[in-house]
């Protein structure tokens, strides 16, 4: 089915590496992308380059891979006929995540108070 994808960006700067894919909201697509975001599935995007001049039947078997991307469905939006998938990783640029563990009542009970 037809879909649109924006450019793939590789960078050493933080953030902004997400990729957006637009795809028709058919029953099977809605089902698959909902499962993808619910189960943190991976999505692979590969962009190939080929020249089909004079070859109307099918793309050539020899194609050049010019870009690829692996990510998870981070965001999902759209309307009744179209879905927009935001692919990337869940490394949030804001909010505290490390150190990963915090003191809680299970670990230390009610601790010493001075």
């Amino acid at each position: 089915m037809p879909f649109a994808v924006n450019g793939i960006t590789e960078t050493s700067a933080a953030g902004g590496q997400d990729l957006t894919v637009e795809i028709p909201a058919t029953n099977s697509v809605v089902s698959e992308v909902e499962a993808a975001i619910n189960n943190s599935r991976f999505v692979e995007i590969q962009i190939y380059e080929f020249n089909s001049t004079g070859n109307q039947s099918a793309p050539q078997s020899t194609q050049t891979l010019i870009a690829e991307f692996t990510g998870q469905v981070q965001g999902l939006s759209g309307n009744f006929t179209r879905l927009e998938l935001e692919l990337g990783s869940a490394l949030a640029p804001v909010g505290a995540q490390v150190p990963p563990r915090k003191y809680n009542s299970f670990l230390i009970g009610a601790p010493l108070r001075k």
Partner: protein
Amino acid sequence: MTIRIADPLGLLAAQNGVSDAPAVEAAAAAADSLNSAQMAASIGEPVPIVFCRQVSSNGGIFVSPKATEARYENAESTNVLTVSLMLVLSEGSLATVPIKDVFQGACRKGTWAQTYDRRAGTWTPGNNIGSTTLSGATIWDCPQYCGTSGRYDNMTTLSYINTFDDADTRWDNQVHVFVRNGMQVTRILDDSLGPSNNFIDLALYLIRQSSQIAETLIDTTGMTAAANFTNANSFFFNGQFSESSNLEEWLTATGDYFLLRLIQSKGKYSFKPRVPVNANHTINTGKIDFDFTFTEEHLLPDGFEIEYVPLSDRQDIAYDMIWRQQPDADIGFPRSTQVKYVDLADSGPYEQHDLSAFCAYEDHAVKVAAYKLARRKYVTHTLRITVRSGTYNSSLGIGDICRVRLRRETAVGNPGFHDYIYEIERIEKTTGGACVFTLTHFPIDSQQRSLVARTVAAASGPGVTIDVGRTDFSCDENSATDDTGLANQGVDYPAFDAPTGGSGGGGGGGAGGATGTELSAPEEEGEPIEPPDNPEDSLEETQDLELFSGEHDPGDELNVSTDDFSCVGQVQWFKVDKNTGERELISTQTEAINGNYTLQITVDTIDHEIVAIGRCSDPSTASGFGAPIQLGKTDPIPTNTRVYNNIIQNGGLSTSTTEHLSWQGPAEIRIGPKCIGCNGATKNCSESGARPTFQIINYYRPTKPCETITNSGFAFQDHVANESCGGDDWDAIDIPFVQSYELFRTDSC
């Protein structure tokens, strides 16, 4: 919420570290006070991670663990105070600490125990200060809330017990531990479990523990190369991580101090050295080969954008690099080393970078400063070019070196060139084919060697070890050379803890016992079970008609007369699946023929109800038609598996089915479009006594076997019924059901 903005080229200097002045300069992180009051842990604060590994008598970290439980009691006759503390040393498992490395204040003293994944020590927390008979005794002002203990899941804990004479004010001094080998992780370089001082090991541990990035999205190859780079150049992490931070921010900021950049390539995270490296991972100070040369042949119109580094970021400055001198058997203390170019910035300005929280090697701090100085000195601009698609689409990556050589026609016969080497900072590959490269100037000397790399490789500290300044060791009660490990003593579930079953909690200190709640597993989401039941709108209410209904068979004809549906409009025929209710349009008719909108029922509608919907024209609506009116609805069309005891009407031939088919070829059987009556005459299927017919289409040619022609139009009559009906009206008969019906041809085809 995501806010997308353009990425101005002017920000690149800050993004790539050319200008990165610290926002705040403060006291060194390693300058902890030794004789402050003992700190207590609080619910909600991070569990510290002690991450270090002593190599060649260098490394390790001096930490000040916080107490979670305490016991205080005094002797009645002497008022001697016994203090017991339960301390959390680090997340994870640590090697046993020797007695010589544990302190209270600046002195080695007390009785210690160390354990993992449980509470250290067997004493019961509480304030048991009582009366004393000692004349003029000090009143011990000890905390009243002494802790209730916990599970200490996946933590290394310490128990400290010591006694203090009456009026000794040191009873509440902070406890310190010199950790030579920190938390054990699986090291990426040798794939073995143990302490590590490699920044990449810590980064991977934090990434995995935070569950922010799936394992698939970690570029293990790149991470291994980065780990080799820090290892080969002695950039080691010996520190305690206890400040709550954003993971990406911490990885980026701390990675800078290891001359690493956090990159995301093909969706996967990795670190890449900020200087060119050799095959053995040392800094490459030789000739640099560039991977590709962009010329005007590649450049697209308006595809050249340049931004020079502002003067404020190129000014000569002196860097004060703070690191930590960590003696082998004593308290570490912060040191600073000033790094600048000869005869430049002799009187400032100064910029301070504090690496003392993790850097125990002077050369490490000096090389970081050298990198920053060289970048300020040599990197003059950043560039963004938009080029057409080419072979470099798949070959160039972040950190690769390329050359941009563009001819500039400024004078007749004397063209100039923009000819520089660049490091790739960002690649944007558009589906339109154009590639946008954001580049940072990569300065080289006349031999095409990296000026920055050569500066970093040549930089080293003075190498002076400053005496710690301690002269009095008399306060030590334990030996400064005793390598005996602390006793492994503790309890899994103290009697004074109140565990009430539960799952025990996972690494994150999850629900367990009386302190957590685990919800039942999430259920599958369902769909509404009630049918749509919207209130009727009187303004849009339409009167459904029942122009046809009941049982119908394939071959029947349904009619909607213009007498009943007289407005100009359309009639749509739908079939509705009797099981799923799914509705499918069969036909749309906008004009009646002979006064009727007509539908011939076919076998395609079997097991479906047929519904006719009429709409009158209404130009005021978007569709051009008004509210729908149901004109009729049939019962589900029955299946076509009924078969009769038939004879075949084949011209003049009348014989049994078996005999007839024995000489015919492959055939199709389907329900005929018309029904027949008792005497074999064609009848409308909706008429009383009508029975369906079966049409056989035979493919045969007796005179030329294997060459087929078709003949069709055979009807089956109900032979039994025909003999007994005696009139046009037949009684109901039992109709056998068959699942399949095969015809065989007997010739050689």
